[in-house]
């Protein structure tokens, strides 16, 4: 028997689908009636012979997913590789923080899409420009959460490690990285989510493949069920990638679990 939680989840999904079906089919609003209903979407999605050329049986569908996933992964990895070390430097060194923090504070409110034209000029190519825009939001989230993580480390851990004879390098490895890890992973999860929505927007403006591109193209070609297929796919892929990071985080931070009890 499945748990109650499992059934509640499905009640939520099906309830939303029913609402969607009802509002498209029965509501007397003209603009709603143009939208595809869930049955049409699912049929199209699972069809070996889709009306508009995109379903789980077609090669282009996976090409779009692959392109988007590649861009999101590249942007995310780049953000992690640059953001975590930068965040650690900023959290560890007050002087470094004074240089970098105001700059980040000024750059961060610039919407990522505002970077697109400049990015295309700088990277002289659409592909790298889309990745750059995606990278930016992930980078801010990763860096700032890492800074918070390092600064939140209990000062007594630094004192204890000094007492026990740790060098500066030891402190980095034994105190700063593991101590900041919970916040770093929070940052990575936010970064992954932000990367996906920034990516979809970037692809709509400048790309030849990808789920964001597919949405915009289907709109232009009046292939409405495909729009919804691409949107749902974005949701699923985004959810899976967040889950992957959560699982990895939990593996790396087993020490946070308090399951076993020993009497004192």
């Amino acid at each position, binding site marked *: 028997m499945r748990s109650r939680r499992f059934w509640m989840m499905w009640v939520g999904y099906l309830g939303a689908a029913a609402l969607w079906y009802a509002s498209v089919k029965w509501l007397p609003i003209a603009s709603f009636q143009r939208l595809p209903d869930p049955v049409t979407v699912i049929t199209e999605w699972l069809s070996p012979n889709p009306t508009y050329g995109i379903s789980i049986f077609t090669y282009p569908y996976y090409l779009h997913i692959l392109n988007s996933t590649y861009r999101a992964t590249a942007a995310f990895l780049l953000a992690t590789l640059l953001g975590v070390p930068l965040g650690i430097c900023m959290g560890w060194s007050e002087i470094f923080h004074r240089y970098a923090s105001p700059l980040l504070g000024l750059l961060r409110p610039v919407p990522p899409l505002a970077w697109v034209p400049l990015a295309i000029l700088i990277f002289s190519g659409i592909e790298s420009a889309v990745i750059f825009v995606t990278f930016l939001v992930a980078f801010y989230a990763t860096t700032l959460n890492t800074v918070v993580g390092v600064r939140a480390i209990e000062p007594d851990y630094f*004192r204890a490690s000094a*007492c026990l004879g740790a060098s500066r390098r030891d402190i980095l490895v*034994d105190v700063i990285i593991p101590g900041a890890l919970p916040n770093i992973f929070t940052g990575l999860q936010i970064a992954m989510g932000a990367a996906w929505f920034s990516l979809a927007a970037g692809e709509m403006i400048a790309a030849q493949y990808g789920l964001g591109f597919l949405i915009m193209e289907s709109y232009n070609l009046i292939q409405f069920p495909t729009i919804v297929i691409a949107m749902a796919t974005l949701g699923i892929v985004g959810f899976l990638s967040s889950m992957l990071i959560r699982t990895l985080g939990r593996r790396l931070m087993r020490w946070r679990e308090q399951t076993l*009890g*020993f009497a*004192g």
Partner: protein
Amino acid sequence: MAGATTQLGPHASFPNEASAGARLAVRDVSKTYDTDGASVEALKGCSIEVEAGAFVAIVGPSGCGKSTLLNMIAGFDTVSGGEIYMDGRLVAAPGLPPRAGPDRVVVFQNGALFPWKTVLENVSYGPVRQRTLTRKQAENKAVELLRACKLDAVAGAYPAQLSSGMQRRVEIARALMNEPRVLLLDEPFRAMDSVSKTTMHRHLLDMYRISRKTILFITHDLEEAIYLADSVIVMTTRPAMIKLVISVKLQRPRHPRILFSREYLELKREAAESVHEEARKAFERGEREQA
């Protein structure tokens, strides 16, 4: 009493074993904090001579500067005046950058075991990082020590899985692992209920008996101080000075039943009067500052 040097040693009832502890000399040490131009005197003309292997407790009202003294001895903070020596070696003086090290290990008020390391990794950490032992050797030694402290059952656990009392025992074991010459305990049992405290006292006295380190134990609990230590230093309110030194000539090893002995109660009465006087002064001064 502030200017005079105070000589504190282990009581004669201790057999003359070779001690692994160091002589600790605090000479006319003071500490002034500068905050926004106004300087606050936290500690004034404090002199203590602790003999090797002695167990000394420092008692005083909360916020009086006991921890400031400990931080300066540990090498976390600079001194504003005076000197601190360990076995005749200068470890702190004005202008000398503070330097902590494994010869003076601190056990912290709120506990500072690394939560991301297992008990075994925590305990073997010091010698591995100081490169005095290989990881394998350190782990073997740690297992032995944990067994002696009756903690071997939790060697593979993470600190979050242990009770706070257990965590504190592991932290003391982690300190002892480095064979420090001085063990500095900063109100380690502060947040514990009285039953756990009694258990912890027994464990600490056991560890003291086995290791014979010089111990400086900070607390605001007078009964605890008298029960554990050879000498109890009572400090005044800020700026902290030494008000009174009580020599505790109670038999070792100590058993909880001495808590009901006439000697113990007499010492406690004497100390309590003095501490209460200080607490009253602090309270009154606080009220004056309000007015």
